């Protein structure tokens, strides 16, 4: 499950291209994943941002994602569970916790 932050700020810095890339590439590489859009995560300084949730693991947010980095995310994180440079730590509390 991949969520791409698609608010005005994200789209302006290229989130739409990254989302299209992910949809195409995951398909080509036969990876079963859902790519979904969401609103602004608040990390405007690091747009485009996306959040990847692998089964049984906590969601990880990646910042400054362009097509090259998206490729890395698929190859390294999604396939191998290997983390990449530049992930953004969760720094807020949700209300249902």
């Amino acid at each position, binding site marked *: 499950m991949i969520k791409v932050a698609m*608010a005005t*700020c994200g789209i302006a810095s290229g989130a739409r291209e990254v989302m299209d890339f992910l949809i195409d590439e995951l398909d080509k590489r036969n990876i079963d994943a859902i790519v979904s859009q969401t609103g602004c*995560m*608040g990390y*405007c300084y690091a747009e485009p941002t996306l959040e990847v949730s692998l089964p049984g693991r906590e969601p990880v947010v990646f910042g400054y994602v362009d097509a090259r980095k998206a490729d890395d995310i698929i190859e390294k994180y999604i396939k191998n569970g290997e983390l990449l440079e530049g992930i953004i730590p969760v720094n807020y*509390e*949700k209300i249902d916790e």
Partner: protein
Amino acid sequence: MAKYKMHILVCGGTGCRASEGNLLYKNLKNEVKENNLEDDVQVITTGCFGFCEKGPIVKMIPDNTFYVSVTPADAAEIVSEHAIKGRQVKRLLYKDPVKKEQVSDSKHMGFYKKQIRIALRNCGLIDPENIDEYLAADGYEAMGKVLLEMTPEDAIKEMIDSGLRGRGGGGFPTGIKWQIASKVDADQKYVVCNADEGDPGAFMDRSILEGDPHSVLEAMVINGYCIGATKGLIYIRAEYPLAINRLKIAINQAREYGLLGTDILGSGFDFDVEIRYGAGAFVCGEETALIHSMEGLRGEPTFKPPFPAQSGYLGKPTNVNNVETFANVPVIYNKGAKWFSSIGTEKSKGTKVFALAGKINNVGLIEVPMGITLREVIFEIGGGIKDGKKFKAVQTGGPSGGCLTEKHLDTPIDFDNLLAAGSMMGSGGMIVMDEDDCMVAVAKFYLDFTVEESCGKCSPCRIGNKRLYELLDKVTKGQAGMEDLDNLRNLSQVIRDTSLCGLGQTSPNPVLSTMDNFPDEYAAHITDQRCLAGVCKDLIRYEIIPENCVGCTACARNCPVNCILGERKQLHTIDQSLCIKCGACLEKCKFNAVAVV
């Protein structure tokens, strides 16, 4: 292929880098290599953890151990003890300042996570174009509860008890506003959502509408039920095409699911929502002007009373609330007024969304409980000032707000404290300024905005602000005398006291607050003809420092008016009579040979 068993995350934020985070990262990598753990342990840098005060931060995954104030010398111990032997390095754990206990897991560090997302609870988590995702996140549950289980009186009481205050700027208690509108008898009433976000640098309403439009719709239905309105209108600026698009999708989906329309959830209550577009006039954020604009009239405010609750849209009782205010509403009914009022300060409950902008590292949208200090917001969540410069001021409340300085950094943020400090909450824009910003120029910038956006209906605002701008302009050009400072103050007072609406009543705030907090800067412009920050063009000069100039010609080649003279490898000089003070030479010089004097 390698599957890592452990990850060591090193904060790569500016704050942590400044305290040797880079060296720490290198040392950790080396230690991992020396112990032949490269296939098992991965060391990576991350974005800012928002806890710069205790940096550098190291987090271990999967056990979530959180180390603070880690020095490069600690790398060996972390690897040998934690990575190899699986034992925590106790001395590096965070110590809870209240309980004096060591906390190992960042999840239990309530103190560390300074943000609580209530209004932004779904932003970045759900797909805003899919109502099912909102429903899965307890969406429309509050509406069901209110419509089916509560009387309008009970629901209003809950809202009053929660202590929620309007997030659009004024901070009027939302429950009281609803109560007033509910008590007026009329054949038709309206609920209006004010999405005319106009403060420069503020974008929280846009983000909410783009990320979680259903929460606003749900709150509007609840509001309608409470006051007896069956129609809702969203006044949104046409410059927000994506937000408008997502709102339209949300409205259609809600209608399809029977969550808008007639007999909602079988409760017998009817409610529907329409969108109205604004043309982007700042004054239309003022509720009476907004209502006029929706009626097709000029966007000009009218004197209150009558309040919109008595006579608003088409002369009918109307309740106007801001987007962020509405976004808080469903949570209050789901979790209870008591829960909501447990967050925040005595008179300001809940959280506030701030848009951090300006010279700050983590530009973005944050939601923090009321009562947090500016220091925590700027230096921890915001990651501090860009390029390690010195903090000078933070502007809150947009063109109606004021500048707060170093001495306000530890003031808890809430509606009343900000007012007392000479600024205001406003819609939540926070523009951070560093030592390179000239406060007179900042005041002039905001006033320029006000002059542009004044609707022209009342003379104090239309003429007064223009004159105020001209006085400031004189100061920035070094043409003002000390008596002009008194003129600025007197005129500000008059505009504040006599303007018709909030725009004029607050427009002198940036001037007054900068005069109060930075009297020396004003004086320097007037008596010494100097702009200390090097911003005001008429008072500065670019000069070449002979000792540093190597004659590389970079400045001369980039000068747009060719006013820099000098041969290759010879000292260059600037012809001051031609210089337009664009600063290109300063930017291009790699040898620190250009200075602003």
